[in-house]
């Protein structure tokens, strides 16, 4: 999902892009006083907003709330597979309208209250009734009931292929029903997660200090006794802090790796964790008929110098792509990536053939797009089109996309899962499709996807949708962005972009 409340720092762009799915993290330098204490200090670009279980945002914000609140499922680092967490197992009925979750026994909230099915049902019911970012993820849910202490039954209005993966994120967070209504919930919620917030040492918006709970059911998976999450929006400040030993894990500009002391820092490359693409909002051609013409959309795809952007601006962190679906999923087809080589001449010819040469489109300029605007404008110029970047403040971005005033939009979205990718980009109510484009092919394929409970059975429909979308050029995918992590001695970065931004991405380094 996109980064919502970025700082303006242009600097932060790339870091922010990478950070969408991951946070920067760091472990601490070993403490000389006791072998048993290990501290992790991670730099993030943006601090978390509300910690209320009904208002949780994914991405880097998860480092903080994901440490305090337990989630029902867990997305394994390095594989991205869904694994049991607070829920030991799960079972769909035949048409995917009923989901039964078996809840682990012996878990407690930090207050000592046991975690049971009633608590999970209460949290979910509350989230469904509370306006916020999570409400929409539970939109398909009809009811949530605690069948007994360790069984939760979720009934759906219709099958939602995204639901299960979402349970590894904010939608699967568990709050303590006794305190959910309290004021503290937004800033210091009672949770059943591996850490509690040290409010005395925490400076909201700047520094979050988390202390490990030794009575956590899965304490062994969390080697760090304290975790500090620091908001360092400025990459230079973050790099300084890393070198000065104030943090021990952070993403760095890959060209700066050479400046780090090799005996102190370990470098880990994450090849892909988010998709950067040029979204074509007006696929219908309502305001800009040119964008309704598949030739123009294809021309845009030919115009973009993906390799140049990857090497020039992203320092090679990532991988070029002609398709939206995550390279970690089953839908992505490497064979499609040869569809649109960088060929401005061909693009120009296509634009001329379509008769739209000279058209200029309005596109919002946001904190995410700033570093790439000049390259993308250049690409449009090369094929005889123009772009008019209109500065849009972050808090107006959402409204801008929905306003219909813009033909295109530059986006960086973190990886979710194949189902979410399909829905976000191509469904009529998808985020990346604010003008609600649909045609017979997308309708047909999405219908299959949305009614087939077994993912493997739905896979051909996904693959057909992907191939169709690439051919139709509904969007202009650019690259899967990656990142370069630097961790100090003692801390290891374990993930490669498939997991979520939780402290489980980090472990103790072999010494």
């Amino acid at each position, binding site marked *: *999902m*996109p980064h*919502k*409340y*970025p*700082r*303006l*720092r242009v600097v932060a762009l790339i870091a922010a892009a990478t950070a969408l799915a991951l946070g920067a993290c760091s472990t601490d330098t070993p403490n000389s006083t006791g072998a048993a204490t290990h501290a992790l200090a991670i730099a993030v670009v943006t601090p*978390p*907003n*509300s910690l*209320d279980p009904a*208002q949780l*945002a994914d991405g880097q914000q998860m480092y903080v709330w994901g440490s305090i609140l337990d989630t029902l499922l867990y997305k394994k680092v390095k594989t991205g597979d869904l694994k049991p967490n607070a829920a030991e197992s799960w079972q769909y009925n035949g048409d995917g309208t009923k989901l039964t979750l078996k809840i682990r026994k012996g878990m407690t909230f930090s207050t000592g209250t046991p975690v049971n099915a009633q608590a999970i049902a209460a949290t979910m019911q509350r989230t469904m009734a509370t*306006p*916020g*970012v999570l*409400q*929409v*993820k539970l*939109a398909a849910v009809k009811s949530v009931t605690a069948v007994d202490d360790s069984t939760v039954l979720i009934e759906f209005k219709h099958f939602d292929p995204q639901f299960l993966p979402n349970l590894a994120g904010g939608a699967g967070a568990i709050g303590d029903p006794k305190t959910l209504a309290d004021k503290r919930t*937004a*800033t210091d919620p009672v949770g059943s997660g591996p850490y509690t917030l040290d409010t005395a040492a925490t*400076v*909201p*918006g*700047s*520094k979050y200090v988390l202390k490990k709970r030794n009575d956590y059911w899965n304490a062994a998976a969390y080697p760090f006794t304290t975790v500090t999450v*620091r*908001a*360092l*929006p*400025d990459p*230079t*400040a*973050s790099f*300084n*802090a890393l*070198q*000065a*030993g*104030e943090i021990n894990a952070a993403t760095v500009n890959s060209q700066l790796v050479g400046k780090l002391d090799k005996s102190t820092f370990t470098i880990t490359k994450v090849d892909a964790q988010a998709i950067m693409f040029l979204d074509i909002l007006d696929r219908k051609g309502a305001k800009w008929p040119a964008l309704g013409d598949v030739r123009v959309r294809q021309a845009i795809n030919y115009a973009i110098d993906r390799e140049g952007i990857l090497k020039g601006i992203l320092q090679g962190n990532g991988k070029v792509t002609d398709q939206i679906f995550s390279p970690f999923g089953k839908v992505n087809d490497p064979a499609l990536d040869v569809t649109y080589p960088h060929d401005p001449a061909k693009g120009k010819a296509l634009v001329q053939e379509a008769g739209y040469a000279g058209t200029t489109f309005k596109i919002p300029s946001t904190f995410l797009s700033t570093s790439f605007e000049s390259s993308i404008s250049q690409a449009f110029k090369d094929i005889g089109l123009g772009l008019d970047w209109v500065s849009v*403040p*972050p*808090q*107006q*971005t*959402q*409204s801008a996309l*929905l306003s219909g005033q813009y033909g295109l939009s530059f986006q960086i979205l973190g990886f979710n899962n194949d189902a979410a990718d399909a829905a*976000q980009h191509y469904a009529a*109510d998808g*985020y990346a499709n604010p003008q609600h484009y649909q045609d017979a092919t997308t309708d047909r394929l999405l219908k299959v996807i949305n009614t087939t409970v077994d993912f493997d059975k739905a896979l051909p429909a996904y693959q057909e949708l992907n191939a169709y979308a690439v051919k139709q050029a509904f969007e202009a995918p650019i690259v899967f962005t990656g990142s370069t992590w630097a961790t100090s001695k003692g801390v290891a970065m374990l993930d490669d972009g498939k997991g979520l931004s939780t402290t489980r991405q980090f472990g103790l380094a072999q010494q």
Partner: protein
Amino acid sequence: MLAYVLRRIGAGLVLALLVTLVTFLMLSLSFGDVVRTLLGQSATPESVAAMTKQMGYDRPVLVQYGDWLLHLLRGDLGTSVYTSLPVGPSVVQRLAVTLSIIVPALLITVLLSISLGVWAATRGGVADRIAQGLSLVGYIVPGLLIAIVLVYLLAVRAKLLPATGYTPLSTDPAAWLHSITIPVIVLVIGGVANMAAQVRGRMIDELRRDYVRTLRTRGVSTTSIVVRHALRNAAGPALTVLSLEFIQMFGSALIIENVFALPGYGSYAFNASLQGDIPVIMGITVFGVLLVTVVNLGTDLANGWLNPKARLH
């Protein structure tokens, strides 16, 4: 005297009322954006409507303002729409960070500026040219550059001072001192460049006044003339410059706070503005106006103490 102070504070309150009203009216244009941002990418029209209602944005703007004002009178500035943190305590906490940089910076700026300014004004010649040259360097060399060099040398290389972050004075005085050192130095350089020139100019003017000559004809010592008489008379106008400098430092501090990742008032305001966090922006505005009122009142009172003519009877 008391009546005067009360009247000034009253005027400050009226000012706060007006400024907050204007700010609120202007911000009300973007209330819809806030709801959309809060709800994120997949918001449905129903959830937008529900959220708008829940936040009270569906009411007439003036009613909302009145409501905000009533809460303010009860000492409640509301909570951030994003983090749900109470605005009042947050602003105070952030203000404490910024003030703990600005106040030491200002004190050092005053000491250095007076020394440098008086030195230049009473020595003339080479001393004056050195002082003016220093001011010019302070103008040309960006504070940021100095900050970068200092951070690199003192924090990254020598590891004597932290490169980022802030430790409250109450937590650890030594760490506090370390965390403010570089930001203070950067602010001082910019401040001295301006203030020293002001002190110098004022001192030159004062030293040429008739009463100085008359004091000399009575055999009064040079030190007494410079320090007791000229400096004291130069202090009034310099104080006004100082109060403006103080307000200005909030602007400079904003950039410093960003670079050093300090959780200060400026960056708080900046982020709140970016996000359109209305209760926070309003809280910042209230504190901003009150702060300016207090600083101006303090300046006027100090001026009255320095300048008998402006004294209130």
